[in-house]
């Protein structure tokens, strides 16, 4: 737990915000980990994926989904937040892969950015598929491109990029592994379509976010797992739908 200072808030789309924070970043060990944020007036913390991080700053991207994220979006620069950091297992990048495909849908996109950066640092440049509902929802395409990634965007209504779902365009790429994050329906579709192995990041309503309450448990082939502690990332091989 620590106190973090809001350094900037920027509106990315009509309902999505990018926030950078400063504070103790040493808790965060892997891409795909998340933080859990205390927001004044709300009892439970709000989990958000780490979108980017360096020694001093952390970037989060969040969609205004309800009252809590709405309050977060209205916070002022230089105010402070109480955040539990470095939660969850994160993506395991020590798997033997050469052509990974990163697939993100909506507010599942943020953790893939730090993942792409980390892979890049390891000498692997991933391809990226980003799916949104419509043109107005699209964010971070340029950021991924700036990393040198081959990026493809699709929208459900075709108002931007390719028309359709991420699964409609993922075969435009050669890939030997998938890293994905997004709504469960999307994850399931990727699971069903792709013939290679991969890692999938899940969401669940959380009590604690650090493994104490059993609020977020799911069944896997290898027993019960807490999305918050043993996840949010699960390997394709263990997933039970």
């Amino acid at each position: 737990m620590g106190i973090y200072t809001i350094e900037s808030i920027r509106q990315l789309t009509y309902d999505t915000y990018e926030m950078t924070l400063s504070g103790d970043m040493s808790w965060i060990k892997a891409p795909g980990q998340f933080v859990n944020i205390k927001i004044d007036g709300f009892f439970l913390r709000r989990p958000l994926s780490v979108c980017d991080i360096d020694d001093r700053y952390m970037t989060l991207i969040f969609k205004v989904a309800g009252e809590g994220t709405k309050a977060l979006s209205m916070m002022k620069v230089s105010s402070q937040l109480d955040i539990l950091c470095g939660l969850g297992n994160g993506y395991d990048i020590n798997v033997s892969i050469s052509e990974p495909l990163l697939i993100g849908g909506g507010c599942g996109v943020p953790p893939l950015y730090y993942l792409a950066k980390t892979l890049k640092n390891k000498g692997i440049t991933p391809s990226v598929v980003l799916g949104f509902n419509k043109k107005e929802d699209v964010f971070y395409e340029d950021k991924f491109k700036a990393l040198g990634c081959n990026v493809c965007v699709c929208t459900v209504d075709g108002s931007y990029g390719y028309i359709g779902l991420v699964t409609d365009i993922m075969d435009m790429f050669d890939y030997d592994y998938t890293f994905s994050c997004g709504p469960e329906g999307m994850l399931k579709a990727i699971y069903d379509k792709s013939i290679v192995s991969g890692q999938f990041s899940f969401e669940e309503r959380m009590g604690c976010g650090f493994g104490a309450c059993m609020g977020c448990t799911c069944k896997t082939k290898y027993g019960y797992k807490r999305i918050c502690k043993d996840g949010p990332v699960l390997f394709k091989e263990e997933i039970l739908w």
Partner: protein
Amino acid sequence: MVNLSVNLSGLTLSNPIIPASGCFGYGKEFSEYYDINILGSFCMKGTTKEPRFGNETPRIAESSSGMLNSVGLQNPGIEHVVQQELKEIRAYYSKPVIANISGFSVEEYEYCVRRLRGIDNVGLIEVNISCPNVEQGGMSFGTDPEMAAKVTKAVVKVADKPVYVKLTPNVTDITEIAKACESEGASGICAINTLSAMRIDIKKQKPVLANITGGLSGPAVFPVALRMVYQLYKEIKIPIIGIGGISKVEDVIEMMMAGATAVQIGSLNLVDPYICKTIINQLPGMLEQLGIDDINKIVGAAHR
């Protein structure tokens, strides 16, 4: 120096602060945040005879100053708890813990409690007859004085540690249930478990929780818990562990003044993993400010 140590039926705690069942796992996650040996004791996640997955997710919802859970007693079963968890706990917690036991029949309760005989890092047994999140059993034992008496009697007979019975607030008269337990040999009463509650997702027009209803806990329930502890203190002679909505050091003191010998803190651990440590640190100063040199002196003070 303020005396913080309290005694629960022979078990001495260095202070009255105990994390509540289901909100502290087996302590491991918290031991990564701070040295949990400072705790008076801690209460393990509820254990049943057989392993249980519990209810489907979503199991968690939020409300004003509170949360709802419908975990439904997920646990690896008594055998695993005895063989593994209770052994592993020794590595990071050197005092006796409290074992929280649930069952779907009197026999299951009895089985679990018998299985805990001779295990020296279990200091107390908390018999949960109040879980609102399981179909049969659970709370149904806690809403009927006869059933409560039956479970207590069976369990007390086989237990080699003090037996505390944990009661549900979802009853017309909690003192009636407590008296039934007391008369069958319970060493103490724990009150309260969660209030049966629900939330609806207005966009989906469906209950938020897969289980439809869940148990409300957190600061929202504190005044209800306090009232029940106050009532219990008037009607029973055995010690009470006060539980429900405690979020700060002042709440601990209110709860003890209402009649609790010790307290359990549940949900607050989930949103602030350091809460018990913070409260333990603040207790001596707070008591000094109130001119109290021994915490035992405030137990039931509001009745005088």
